């Protein structure tokens, strides 16, 4: 068997992504292209992703992004072996642009189509950098849209959600706290930067869902966000200056503490020795730093893909497609539907 080129298309939120992965006969994967067009700047003044703005941007960006990816990979579209596309979860209108395009490419090129799960794609992204995953591992997905703990028993076989947020996603909490502190959107990078000059122990913000009777692996960030707001407003009322760096650092400490504590506990409970952290918030320095410390203590191997692979992109979808092709999965039908609320357990929609 020869090399197979897998094309990945992503459009579930505000990034239009096209990735191309070369799948070797031995199952090895090489990333040939990873092109992303982001509409994040168009959403900034709204303080969050506006679905219609994102969908319009996807339509405009789809063909140019594809063109750049094909050029970057130095291939011809007709050389592609299979096409993978995010079918869910995500914004309905945004998903529809990518899936419609993917169907047209599949029909025009007469190649099989795989409608895949965006969340599984985030985990698959790591295999582009660190190679195959062990038979069982845990994945912590953290971004503006997701906060999940997953038990991964084969990327093409079985992924089980063992915990998720009961309210806001971790990245959403960052965005809201950033607004509170008059920092730009998206909130992750500016809070991370500011937090480096502050003291994470300065203010004891609450750790959501960490009581003895609380759900062991679920997260809650809404209370934390409110408590930061209350603290800031109390200072303002008292006419005190707000120690922005300490607030940012203490908030970030609370997020990183809960996420890593729960992830490591899950690793121990499920008897796995590898933890993957992916999603846009994985790039957060305190989260990865604390995770590295605690994983080392617990004898767990930590895998965090580079930031470019952590955020939404087509490469992760191509990688997941490659895992499915390598496993001999059956292609999806061309009347495939998008599923905005797709559960992570459904790796592929037929």
């Amino acid at each position: 068997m020869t090399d197979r080129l897998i094309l990945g298309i992503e459009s579930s939120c505000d990034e239009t992504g096209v990735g191309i992965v070369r799948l070797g006969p031995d199952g090895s994967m090489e990333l040939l292209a990873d092109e992303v067009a982001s509409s994040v700047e168009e959403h900034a003044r709204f303080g969050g992703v506006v679905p219609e703005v994102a969908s319009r941007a996807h339509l405009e960006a789809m063909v140019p992004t594809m063109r750049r990816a094909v050029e970057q990979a130095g291939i011809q579209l007709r050389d592609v072996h299979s096409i993978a596309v995010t079918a869910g979860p995500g914004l309905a209108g945004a998903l529809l642009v990518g899936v419609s395009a993917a169907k047209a490419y599949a029909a025009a090129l007469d190649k099989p189509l795989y409608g895949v799960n965006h969340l599984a794609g985030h985990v698959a992204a790591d295999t582009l950098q660190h190679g195959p995953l062990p038979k069982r591992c845990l994945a912590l997905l953290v971004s503006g849209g997701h906060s999940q703990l997953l038990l991964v028993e084969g990327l093409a076989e079985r992924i089980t959600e063992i915990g998720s947020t009961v309210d806001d996603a971790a990245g959403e909490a960052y965005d809201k706290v950033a607004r509170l502190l008059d920092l730009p959107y998206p909130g992750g990078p500016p809070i991370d930067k500011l937090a480096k000059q502050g003291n994470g122990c300065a203010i004891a913000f609450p750790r959501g869902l960490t009581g003895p009777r609380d759900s062991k692996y679920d997260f809650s960030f809404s209370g934390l966000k409110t408590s930061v707001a209350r603290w800031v407003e109390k200072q303002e009322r008292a006419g005190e200056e707000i120690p922005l760096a300490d607030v940012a650092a203490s908030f970030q400490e609370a997020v990183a503490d809960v996420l890593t504590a729960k992830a490591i506990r899950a690793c121990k409970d499920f008897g796995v020795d590898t933890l993957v952290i992916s999603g846009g918030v994985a790039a957060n320095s305190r989260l990865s730093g604390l995770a590295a410390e605690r994983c080392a203590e617990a004898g767990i191997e930590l895998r965090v893909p580079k930031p470019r692979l952590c955020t939404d992109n087509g490469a992760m979808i191509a990688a997941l497609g490659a895992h499915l092709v390598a496993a001999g999965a059956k292609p999806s039908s061309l009347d495939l539907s998008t599923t905005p609320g797709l559960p992570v357990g459904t790796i592929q929609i037929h």
Partner: protein
Amino acid sequence: MLVLALDTATPAVTAGVVELTPDSLPRLLAERVTVNSKAHGELLTPHLQAALAEAGHTLADLDAIVCGSGPGPFTGLRVGLVTAAALGQALNRPVYPVPTPDAIALDAATGRPLLVATDARRKEVYWAAYDAAGRRTDGPHVDRPADLVGKLPAVSDAAGEGAEIYADVLNLPVVQARYPSPVSLVAVAAEELLAGARPAALTPLYLRRPDAVEPVGRKRVTKA
């Protein structure tokens, strides 16, 4: 020449294969149309494949693609445009956008001034007006039917689903051309197609801005 016609600007998911020659009217070889405003994404590609198969052709046989550019409900409208754009890129064929009401006007062609109105949801219509020769004289615009009555140039008939839904407000005889047909979509672009003209940009006619509000200040969680 062999042309694929697509339109998703109305509840009709439309795909047709049309033969176009310089000296005769466009001829329909096969079409697949399903009226379902929620199924554009699922059905468009299977429809165009089925129409091509029935016509005895494959995508590789196409010379060009024509796609309705709206106006129409955004989510469905984008399905047609992105499908056409991707097909055009992968097959290396030109894609010609066509305003959807122009095709409906051609289908209706009463020889009298005409209003074409399609359903814009939110109790509004997308509309355009045409003279007796079928030339567009106004629009496309989006308005509430009652407001449109005041702005409308003199027309004798109305076509399109919007004209049917709001027939009692518009008070015009309704002619039967509810959705754009593949033949009319191709006919609207026939001159450019036959001349091999450089296609216009594949830009959707949204006519409305996205719903989005900029946040003003921040909400307090404690009482001031």
